[in-house]
């Protein structure tokens, strides 16, 4: 009797295990739910059972969430590859299963054809060369330190900024700090994989850096690679508004003074301006 009971229990367990083994569960984000199919963001479409059970992924109970793009779902497949249950959530679900395991259930009229676009990037490595991609971007935050050498005639108390396409080319987007007679520095955080273009300036676009040949220069380009910290060193050869020997500096909203080569604009009023030699007034 005991043996019979044990056999029955074993049989029941076997049936349960077999039944459990025939269903596969994967979780992912929905791309679409239409025409009797559910599509995940892998692009794969799967048959949906007419009586598919739609539940809340957290409670297992009824849900008001409807299958739609962006919704996260845990799909249960039966042995024929039909989705019999969808547990939905508006927030990401823990990874479960693998879409590689259900790829053979995906419905597609055409047979897979290799994509030459993708194959071009998978060239056979030469001996000793790693087949891993040379650059990988995880998207994690990276501390990037910019150090720039400025022209020696840059006024000592000048403010130096970085202007980037990330900030709509705002001239004062990233203020820097002087670290010695010729260098300024700033550290900022960027996500790895970010590519941005930038230039240095002295607070306005009239005082933007120019190339070594005096012409306006194209922006620098920088790719933030995966690292704990990165350092970027640059050289500014000249400023647009104050090249060597220049005597006129345009400044918005300030009328220039008449050309006056007297270099001491703030002498006390008690000091008379330079005078001709007494008795020898210069001719007009």
């Amino acid at each position, binding site marked *: 009797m005991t043996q019979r009971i044990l056999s029955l229990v074993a049989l029941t367990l076997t049936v349960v295990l077999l039944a459990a083994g025939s269903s596969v569960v994967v979780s992912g984000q929905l791309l679409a739910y239409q025409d009797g199919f559910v599509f995940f963001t892998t692009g794969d479409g799967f048959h949906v059972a007419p009586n598919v059970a739609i539940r809340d992924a957290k409670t297992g109970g009824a849900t008001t969430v409807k299958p739609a793009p962006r919704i996260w779902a845990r799909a249960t497949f039966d042995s024929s590859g039909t989705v019999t249950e969808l547990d939905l959530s508006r927030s990401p679900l823990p990874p479960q299963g693998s879409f590689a395991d259900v790829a053979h259930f995906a419905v*597609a*009229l055409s047979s897979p054809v290799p994509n030459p676009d993708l194959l071009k990037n998978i060239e056979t490595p030469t001996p000793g060369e790693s087949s891993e991609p040379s650059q990988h971007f995880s998207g994690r935050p990276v501390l990037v330190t910019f150090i720039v050498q400025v022209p020696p005639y840059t006024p000592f108390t000048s403010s130096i900024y970085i202007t980037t396409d990330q900030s709509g080319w705002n001239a004062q987007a990233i203020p820097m700090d002087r670290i010695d007679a010729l260098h300024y520095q700033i550290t900022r955080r960027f996500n790895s994989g970010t590519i941005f273009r930038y230039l240095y300036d002295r607070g306005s676009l009239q005082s933007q850096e120019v190339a070594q040949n005096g012409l306006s220069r194209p922006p620098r380009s920088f790719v933030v690679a995966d690292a704990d910290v990165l350092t970027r060193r640059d050289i500014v050869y000249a400023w647009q508004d104050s090249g060597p020997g220049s005597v006129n500096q345009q400044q918005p909203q300030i*009328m220039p*003074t008449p050309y006056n080569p007297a270099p001491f604009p703030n002498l006390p009023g008690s000091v008379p301006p330079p005078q001709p030699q007494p008795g020898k007034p210069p001719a007009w």
Partner: protein
Amino acid sequence: MALSSTLAALMLILACASTRAATPGPSPAPTSVAPQASATPTPQSTAPPPRTLLYLSASNVNFYYDRFLIEADGNVRVQTSDGFTVTGDAFSMDLKLNRFLVAGHVTLHDSTGTVSGAAISDFLDFQRIYFVPVTTAPDRWTFLNGDLAHPAKGRVMPDDAFYFPLISQHPSITASGAVIGTKTYARFVNAHTYFLNAGVPLGSYVVNFSPNQYFAQNTLSGASVDLTWNVAGNTNALTAVHLRYDPTYKTYLSVEQHLVGDHEYAIFSVNPATRAEKWWNLALYEKLGSRFQISSFTQYYTQQVWLGEPSAAQQTTFLNATYAFPHSYVTATSQLTNYNTLGPGSLEVPQAIGGNLSHPSQAQITATSFANKIPGLPIFEQIYEGYGFNHDSVGPLQYLQGSNGIPPIPIPGLQAYGSPCADQHGVVGKNGPVYYCPVYTTIWNTVFGFNLYTQSLKLNNPENPYETYYFNASFNRQWQWNSLPHWISSENVNFSINRAFSRSLNTYLAYQVLNVGDHYLQGGYLPCPDVGTPLCPLSFTSFRGVSTERTTSLGINFAPHPEFNFSLLVRHHEDFPIPVPGLFGLPPNNIIGQPLYTSYLGQAPYDATGEVRIKILSHALLDVSRTFYWYGNPYRTTFWQPSFVVQVLPI
């Protein structure tokens, strides 16, 4: 004036013509890379894809500024300039990756018909469209190079072709539609932004993310706060309204228009637009070939109520042209100014005064070498030489146009080296004549100078890099000879030693000596009378136009976090002539309270400047600084910079 107007008009015509003729420039690489490992398709053609316009409408359109993502849901409709229309339930576009996705009950419609599907993804840079059609069953089609009539069926697609980005933050902008110019701009329709979770209606708002740096050019002065509303724009234009605040003009509106091409730009602005004091600005730039560029900047100042008849008007134009040689360049600069474009006696009607009728013009051509390393030495050298012409035909006495009891305006003229004016207007100065008339209407000048400098030189080689000391030095010497018996020399020497104690803490100690000589071959500076009085301190008895400023600086920068920064700069000046509190004039400030020049005679022997920057919003930094001055013995006078310099910097 006529010359500047003609040149400005010519530049504008050139800029407009070039803008019209501009063809799409080389398309730069995507400015962001998806964090997911994915096989990126390689375009078959090396030619850059054309720019595409997308017209998007949906029930909800959200834009996330920090990630340059547009996400839309409900009744999505996308019409493209490539000739097809897509409808669906959800839309996602990464503006930097330059690709978009439409998912859920998708229809793809073009001139050949309509196909239904589950999702479509367009990789615009690579001219590949990945489509999941649903006919009798799902399938996978790839459209190559814009050919929607002949899909490549069954092609394996990139793993992330239909990826939705994970988003947890609040959108920066919400809207009901958008026009997206790929890689350059997105213009949102019925847009709202959010401040402290409260919606702020914007109507139309443009986000410009063009790699073209000419969009950066602006003609506005600095401001403490600048809130920019980009009202309209496209690939080559941007119209912005600025709500600004500065200590001078307080709160006001400004308008700026950008017109940008691949090699040229034209920027126009009026600032402040809602104040009687208006500055009308026009900046023009054109690059012709790879070696030559020309630019101009014109300011027109008017004092007028709205657009009424101005009571004052001034104009100045800067012209710059640069030609690059292989190891040097030549720059021609010109400055044309008219201090009263309304004419004599036109100011302050009905009690008209003449005002300053001067209209000096100036031109200079300068040749500058590249910085070259001196063989065998860790020193770089650079030399330059220029020739200049300065002219003001109005001549002397034009400053003495006061009338109706209004005193004349004692503005130094083209050359203040002159004799006392014949007519002193009845003003008798305690120390002699008050008004000195300019003498020369034309001055030619020659400038020659050179720079020597070192890059950072290591002073020691410890194992710990944070124990390394670096040395920097620079030296500038310049002479300027004028066509009158007058020449100016300057010599500027800088030394500094710096050390980083950690990644977040930097210090430097610098020493600067600036000598300026204002030499006259005949006459020149005279000692002030009443030597030893407060108005004529002892050091002026030996002052003959040569000054020396010695500055020792200690700078500390502490940046423990990228969003927080504190810096302190303490300086000691040992100058000749010796500064006396209240005797010397202070430099004028710009409109946000910063001095226009930072090295001047009479500066307090000690000063300390503290500056704090802290991130206050996701896209804004607050920058506050102030300087404290003190004189030490025997004066012991102390004073603060008149006000804090406060700026809100968008990041």
